């Protein structure tokens, strides 16, 4: 395991809670008796009535897996754990931060999902996983699993920019959040956009690697420019893209940049940022360019969520650091078939999107049901997830472009590539308007699948 239980307890806030009690005794493990009592007590969920699957992470992946395991076999006991009290989606959020749709649209109720899906929801923070005793430790107590699913999603990897400077990283996270981990970042971004005024220069970065929501930064740039246009704000959006070209739906975004937002968007491909001065709000690039900005969404590279490290199941992938060390066909951890990893923490080069995680979740859930029935999983159980995603390019009326794709495995290259892919990138005519309608119904369909 990457870190010991002792370290985990030290880092957890509970040690601090324990320290406030009158008598504090550190035992041989370093934990105080008070903290130990809480941490080792059973988590407040009903006793398992059948084989228990514990799922950590209630994003589109974990929510789908929880619901569809119960659908596949109602006798399996499912506990979904998430540290957040409320669900907020990343998908559709660019339309919320720019005031087109209300916060309600992307905000949902974990308890509704648990009620309708007949599984247990535990709002708790996981701080350790012991795969030998098959036990998950949370701040609400611990629980045993027969099968564990880790769907913790991503974290940001600021190392390219911060080079280990924690103060810089923390300042960037606080002042200019990337806005691709929903929650406070979404709200920050919303207020940043509401505060735009004449002379504003907003920087949106696009990271390298297989980052979450490929079209997201371009869509957001369009929508911020559209916000400026609608509100008659004389401002600029500067898109600093680490990639040599727009990474997806390039024709659609490029033509939107040119035709709709010529006076608003400056697109700078192949831009490697060498330094960021968050106080003077200045970015320097490899080519010596200096970009002054008034506000920004600095989307750094991403990595697998650190929970994978805690569980000792992480490995650097071709694309990102610390992603899940799994068999790409069965989603089972190499060397521990009782642990599955899915969603954006997967190392395969699939599009990291809610829709991909949702379609993948159904496949993973079906395989877990089979595995619990004693079936051995293999490549024969693999099915491609589907990526269908819409991006808005203009708000009034709403116009959107889209992409849809499956994946196939190339045995020679030992990697996955797109298969049967298609795009709809003509945002101007009736197609773009239909796409706009489609985008909302696409989102609502996903919420229905996750919660209703």
């Amino acid at each position, binding site marked *: 395991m990457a870190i010991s239980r002792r370290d985990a307890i030290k880092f957890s806030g509970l040690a601090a809670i324990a320290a406030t009690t009158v008598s504090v005794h550190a035992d041989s493990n370093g934990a105080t008796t008070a903290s130990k009592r809480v941490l080792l007590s059973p988590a407040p969920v009903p006793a398992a009535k059948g084989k228990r699957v514990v799922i950590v992470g209630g994003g589109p992946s974990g929510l789908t897996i929880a619901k569809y395991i119960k659908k596949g076999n109602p006798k399996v006991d499912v506990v979904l754990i998430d540290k957040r009290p409320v669900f907020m989606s990343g998908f559709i959020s660019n339309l919320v931060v720019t005031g087109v749709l209300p916060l309600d649209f992307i905000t949902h109720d974990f308890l509704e999902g648990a009620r309708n899906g007949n599984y247990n929801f535990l709002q708790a923070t996981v701080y350790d996983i012991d795969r030998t005793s098959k036990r998950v430790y949370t701040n609400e107590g611990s629980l045993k699993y027969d099968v564990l699913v880790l769907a913790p999603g991503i974290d940001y990897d600021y190392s390219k920019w911060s080079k280990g400077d924690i103060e810089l990283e923390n300042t960037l996270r606080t002042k200019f959040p990337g806005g691709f981990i929903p929650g406070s970042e979404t709200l920050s971004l919303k207020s940043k956009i509401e505060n735009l005024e004449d002379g504003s220069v907003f920087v949106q970065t696009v990271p390298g690697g297989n980052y979450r929501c490929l079209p997201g930064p371009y869509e957001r740039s369009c929508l911020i420019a559209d916000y400026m246009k609608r509100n008659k704000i004389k401002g600029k959006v500067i898109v600093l893209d680490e990639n040599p070209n727009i990474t997806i739906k390039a024709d659609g975004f490029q033509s939107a940049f040119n035709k709709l937002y010529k006076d608003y968007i400056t697109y700078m491909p192949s831009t490697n940022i060498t330094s960021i001065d968050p106080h003077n709000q200045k970015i320097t690039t490899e080519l010596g360019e200096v970009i002054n900005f008034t506000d920004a969404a600095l989307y750094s590279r991403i990595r697998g969520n650190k929970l994978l490290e805690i569980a000792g199941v992480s490995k650097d992938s071709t694309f990102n650091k610390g992603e899940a060390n799994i068999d790409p066909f069965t989603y089972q951890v190499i060397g521990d078939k009782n642990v599955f990893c899915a969603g954006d923490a997967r190392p395969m080069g699939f599009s990291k999107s809610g829709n991909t995680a949702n379609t993948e979740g*159904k496949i993973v859930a079906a395989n877990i049901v089979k595995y619990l029935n004693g079936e051995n999983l293999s490549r024969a159980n693999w099915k491609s997830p*589907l990526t269908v995603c819409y991006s808005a390019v203009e708000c009034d009326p709403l116009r959107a472009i889209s992409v*849809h794709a499956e994946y196939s495995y190339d045995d020679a290259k030992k990697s996955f590539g797109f298969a049967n892919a298609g795009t709809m990138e003509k945002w101007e005519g009736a197609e773009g308007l*239909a796409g706009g309608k*489609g985008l909302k119904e696409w989102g609502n*369909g996903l919420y*229905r*699948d996750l919660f*209703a």
Partner: protein
Amino acid sequence: MDRRNFLKVIGGVTVIAVNPSLICGNLYAADGLLYAAYEKAQLVDESGKPIKASSLEKEVTYIFNYPYASTPCMLIDLPESTNQNIKLKSEMGEEYVWKSGVGKDRTIVAYSAICSHQLTHPTRNDSFIQYVPKTKPTMAYSSSGVIVCSSHLSAYDAKAGAKVLSGPASQPLASIVLEHASDDTLWVVGILGSDKFQDYFKAFKPEFKQFYNGTAEAKKLVSISAKTVKLTQYSKELIQY
């Protein structure tokens, strides 16, 4: 609990489940498990006149609500005869057989218009789901003449029991069991396959308030006749790509 009992308990209505081979329906389930009979209703036009099978326009999507006041179904007269005895599977792995379309040339089919993927369906405002005629292209599948839900691009085979052809849907659309009478009128008698009605009733309560004065009205069973109109009349806007 099997589906038959489930419906009895949940619906609070009497659903008579009989092996469809015992009735004169044109579709049947292999073991009757995925078949539910509802009150037989006649398909009528807007003015209440019975619809004649021979008067249907080819490749046009018609909509009627059945077996509940709020559950939309598609009626389509296809350009060619349907396939026969199609083996289908629900997402839970239950198998059933869709026999054929009805009418003189077995070209007329009816399916639930609630997408089996994420419940997208026609409303008075818009529809993302419809039959795409042979001459119109669709992004969802390599050829047309199929039913497409443009929300997440699922394509269903209209001439083969709405079997999934492509996209994220994991089971066919539920089939509406049609009867074609000797006077050329059309009747609906039941549902074959896995319907999504209970999920639908859970998911769309605000919509039922808006369009049906609430869930109770939305859940009323259709009786005697089902008004059948073109999708273009049913929904203000059609979205398809």
